[in-house]
């Protein structure tokens, strides 16, 4: 997925300003067994809500595809998962790891070279493509069809990067949140919106006056991010993912959230 962005980053700023000096003392955790966790007995996950069906609030709890996968990791480590909702910018820039806000980031986040510089990624766990959302009945097959029209994207997302690269002559409009972007398409403020296929298909299901008219295979994979150098945790995640894919638990979780089984092609 891309990335989504986020709400004000001020909280991150404040936290960085306060904690930058004492990161070395902020570490807690059980050094004796397994990975060093920021909070003992808990696997703390950073995410940015909402990003259905990957993470979404439902009945007082946060559920979703990512949540179920990380639960497998937590179970393997004998701890429980605790989810922190935080601006996507803080996740994507690696700041949340710097200030030890969480152990891992599962936020429907595409593995990109820029992000690899500020964090380490698990093996890919989901194949994402970018897709276009429009009001029903608009024949928009590619970004170039929107010349002279408005294309909305979400700040700090790979969809935004794709739109900037292919959107010559298209008026690009940046939105802070996925919800605002989708509403802008629905209310006709922009002619189309670009984002990851998973979330757009989820939206179209509930909003039949909109349609996904195109998908672009951008070769994106979602990965779970960990603090740079935290190989103990990263390898643990990879081992759990690998096992879940071979014993069918991954497919069951996939079917639960996407309604289909994953295509075998391209997924590692």
């Amino acid at each position, binding site marked *: 997925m891309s990335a989504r962005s986020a709400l004000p980053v001020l909280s991150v700023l404040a936290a960085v300003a306060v904690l930058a000096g004492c990161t070395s003392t902020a570490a807690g955790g059980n050094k004796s067994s397994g990975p060093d966790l920021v909070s003992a007995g808990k696997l703390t996950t950073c995410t940015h809500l909402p990003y259905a069906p990957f993470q979404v609030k439902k009945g007082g709890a946060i559920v979703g595809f990512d949540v179920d996968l990380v639960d497998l990791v937590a179970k393997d480590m004998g701890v429980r998962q605790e989810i922190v909702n935080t601006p996507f*910018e803080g996740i994507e820039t*690696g700041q949340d790891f*710097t200030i030890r806000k969480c152990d891992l980031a599962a936020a429907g986040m595409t593995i990109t070279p820029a992000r690899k510089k500020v964090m380490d990624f698990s093996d890919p766990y989901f194949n994402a493509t970018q897709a276009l959302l429009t009001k029903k009945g608009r024949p928009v097959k590619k970004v170039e069809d929107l010349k002279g029209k408005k294309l*909305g994207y979400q*700040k700090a997302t790979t969809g935004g990067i794709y739109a900037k690269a292919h959107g010559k002559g298209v008026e690009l409009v*940046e939105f802070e949140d996925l919800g605002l972007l989708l509403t802008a398409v629905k*209310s006709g*403020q922009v002619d189309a919106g670009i984002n990851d296929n998973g979330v757009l298909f989820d939206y179209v299901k509930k909003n039949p006056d909109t349609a996904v008219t195109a998908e672009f295979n951008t070769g994106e994979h979602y990965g779970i991010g960990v603090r740079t150098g935290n190989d103990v945790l990263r390898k643990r995640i990879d081992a759990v993912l690998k096992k879940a894919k071979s014993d069918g638990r991954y497919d069951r979780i996939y079917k639960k959230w996407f309604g289909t089984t994953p295509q075998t092609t391209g997924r590692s």
Partner: protein
Amino acid sequence: MPLSKRRRTRVIRGVQYGVLVVAVVALALVADWHQLRTAFFDVEVAKALFPDIITTALVNTVLYTLLGFGFGLALGLVLALMRLSSVPPYRWIAITYIEFFRGVPALLVFIALGFGVPLAFQVALDMNVTVMLSLGLVGAAYMAETIRAGIQAVPKGQTEAARSLGMSQGRATVSIVIPQAFRIVLPPLTNELILLTKDSSLVYLLGLSLNQFELANFGRDALNEHKSLTPVLIAGLCYLVITLPLGQLVRRLEARTARAR
């Protein structure tokens, strides 16, 4: 040996200063300056922000603020007069409006106008119009109360004198009372302008194209691009470029008002 009262005061004051200095030094020593410098003061990143941060972001921030302030001031004056009207329904409308828009977050007003209006009427308002209305509607609620206080602060004798010269009530209000009221409320109105300058960052909710970015959005976009907090700091400093002179203006106006008395 007992200290004299004067000496004791000086010792106590000295201790207070000492504690302050120790606290500041301790904070400075504990902070990881290298981390802070790489995160907030990356010169290369800072250079890349110019000139767009001035020519686009700063200019747009000023534009949005002035649009909102202009509309808000006009509406605020009308509301203040309605609030002071002898016709009850006018007063009720004004009070309801002021209580409502002073009470709801500006964020909700932006969302209601930016997304509610297009969904309800299938018309997309121009971005600048939406900003002007959203900021103005909120600003007007505060400014109406300020202006009302200013009008009430003009001595009654001014109206009576104008009336005795043969002016109508309306004429006396427009020509005699309102000009004096505005002189009184200039400092608080400037405060409102500063508040609106910062509230203008809420336009990010409406969705912005590149040439519509204002300072806060510009800073955060560059934060994502450069993976550095430096742009946010620079954008923050740019707000000071706008607000510090305004604050200075308020102080000068206050001093002038004080001298005039």
